[in-house]
């Protein structure tokens, strides 16, 4: 009960934040992208955390979502909200298609096969110029602001939509984690043979997780497209800009937990910004270098993510309480 109250308080506090930030300003944009990346990492977390399949190709589904809604909007004038649903369906389908050949791959093989799939999608987007605009990218046209058209002049509504997306994806993650599927995924992660023997259909559960994760991240691709307004194949299908980054966010925060991706996003995204702000004009490469050093330090300090700080804190508290 107390936990629910605390959670509600945090959500309300975060919900108030956009009101305090300049709606045309910089921090609300950073805030919006932080929320979006938190939601993306959370969607990744369903596969990467609960099923323990470290996908490095989630940009594939993300890009499908961004392109689907934007192409539907540009070619047929379909609202991005509907485009988002279509993108989610396609993203889920793509996740299914790639999950079938890669599912029995273990660990690093899975990671690298998914990475290759992300690249396949990037090349296709680059080549299929008639549909995607090719390497020149796509701009989301600016139409009069309205919720139905998913178009706003200011960033505040985008921030709220991103927040809502994060809450929804986190809720889905929690429902899965606490529900039958969560138990099954944890069982598969820890001992697939034992899971099978006690009746877990490991193939089916893994496919379900892959499809849900792929569909969610594709839908988030639409949100990203609407906020960023312009994107090209490298932006939404990028290995470094999307695939690795969202996995990194979840891992730095603490993989497999609902709080992990959120902690990770609120660390990584603002850190990148602060580094860029403070150091990028001093010497080329310096800001990225310092970012890399911080990243390494954090991984050495907390190989299982920030979330473990709370665990050890709690352990220390209970120990001192006991003594």
């Amino acid at each position, binding site marked *: 009960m107390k936990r629910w109250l605390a959670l509600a308080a945090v959500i309300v506090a975060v919900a108030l934040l956009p009101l305090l930030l*300049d709606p*045309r*300003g*910089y*921090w609300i*944009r*950073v805030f919006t*992208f932080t929320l979006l990346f938190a939601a993306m990492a959370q969607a990744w977390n369903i596969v990467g955390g609960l099923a323990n399949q470290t996908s490095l190709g989630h940009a594939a589904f993300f890009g499908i979502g961004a392109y689907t809604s934007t192409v539907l909007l540009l070619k047929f004038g379909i609202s991005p909200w509907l485009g988002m649903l279509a993108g989610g369906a396609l993203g889920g389908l793509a996740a299914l298609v790639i999950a079938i050949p890669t599912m029995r791959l273990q660990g690093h093989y899975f990671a690298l096969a998914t990475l290759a799939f992300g690249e396949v999608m990037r*090349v296709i987007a*680059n*080549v299929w*110029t008639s549909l995607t605009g*090719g*390497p*020149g*990218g796509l*701009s989301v046209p600016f139409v009069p602001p309205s919720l139905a058209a998913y178009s706003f*002049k200011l960033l505040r509504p985008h921030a709220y939509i991103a927040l809502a997306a994060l809450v929804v994806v986190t809720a889905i993650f929690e429902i899965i984690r606490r529900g039958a599927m969560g138990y099954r995924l944890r069982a598969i992660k820890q001992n697939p043979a034992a899971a099978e023997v006690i009746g877990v259909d490991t193939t089916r559960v893994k496919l379900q997780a892959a499809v849900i994760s792929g569909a969610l991240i594709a839908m988030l691709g639409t949100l*990203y497209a609407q906020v*960023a*307004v*312009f*994107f*090209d194949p*490298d*932006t939404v299908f*990028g290995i470094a*800009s999307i695939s690795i980054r969202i996995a990194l966010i979840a891992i730095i925060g603490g993989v497999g937990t609902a709080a992990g991706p959120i902690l990770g996003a609120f660390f990584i995204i603002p850190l*990148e*910004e602060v580094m*860029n*702000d*403070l150091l*990028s*004009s*001093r*010497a*080329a*490469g*310096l*800001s*990225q270098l310092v970012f890399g050093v911080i990243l390494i330090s954090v991984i050495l300090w907390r190989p299982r993510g920030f979330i473990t700080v709370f665990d050890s804190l709690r352990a220390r508290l209970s120990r001192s309480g006991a003594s």
Partner: protein
Amino acid sequence: MSKHHSLGSTGVNRRALLSGTAALLASPFVLSSARAEAAPVNVGVIMPLSGPNAQFGINSRNGIELVADEINTAGGIAELGGAKINLVVADATSTPTTAGTVAQRLITQQDMTAVLGAFVSSLTIAISEVTERRDIPLLTMSFADQITGRGYKNIFQVVAKASVIGKAQFEYTAAIAQAAGAKIEKIAIMYEDTAYGTAQANGLRAGAKAANVEVVMDDAYPLGITDTTPLINKLRGSGAQAVFPVSYLNDSLLIIRTMRQQKLTIPAIGGAAGYVIPDFEKGLGEFAENVLSIDTSNYDLAPQLTERFRKRFGYFMVHEALEHAVCLEVLVQAIRKAKSAKAEDVAAALRGAKFTGGWINGMTGGAVQFDQTGLNVLSVPLMVQWRAKDIVTVWPKDIAKSAPVWRS
């Protein structure tokens, strides 16, 4: 221009090292001049300073810094009571979304008169989505067609569009060949599959079609290709009389070297980028001699100005440095004209007026004038040719510094 365009570069490594170290120690705003009485004019400079395009970003920044320093040393902008130019430099990285965020940050943190950037077309487009909504003028030398093709009011493109450049690349070549008594009937196009490569290839194709010339090979190849042998094998079999490679430095060296290895001597006419930087000659030595390339401006059009760049940075003023210098020159002239550093006043002053003099002498038209869409209508591409470690403007005739050499 675009994703991969030319880069300046080079040579003096020790100097680069030293300046790097100095920059590290210095404060972020090295150029903000000391105690000016009038409020400084803030100009955002957003360039890719890390990642694959860092080279171009740094060249561009160098050009801008040179001009800003000169203006500030000369007493700033008299019309604003000697206001100094305060460059606020930031790294656009290689991700458009980040570039947009950086633009938002600069605009939010300080009152910006204008933003300059960002060399790579996709980054420029992303920045323009922010500057347009905040009514801040954005001056650029990126040359994707989309930049001025979206009906935006606050974007100003000082060079010709990619499709125009591509078309010129073909047409100038045909003219040069004709002047030498040769006739081109079959050509080959090869380009990297970036916004820059594809857009320029479109122009080339259009030019060839208009001239009824057969394109016997038309191949895009992936950015970052590490082996061009398949391309050259194909070229060898195509029977083309001239090849138009639109590529980056690495690819340009690979392409020319592999052609030499396979004893293919047909003329190669580069699409700027890798073909117009000092490293091209450094990498190829004698094989660079007489290689032609299209370009959007060249330092030999205003040698007395561009020598100052060579003196300060140790390499010739590559075109993105020159064109960004022109961007700042035009901006300052607009500020003087508006007698205001307010973004909307400056934007109004930029529209329609004709700017001449100063660094603008380095542009082909000798002047800059933006049309409704923000495109500089006076800029035309030019053809350069490598002559003993320098690139010389050889076409069009009226601005050529030397006659073109054509060997087929």
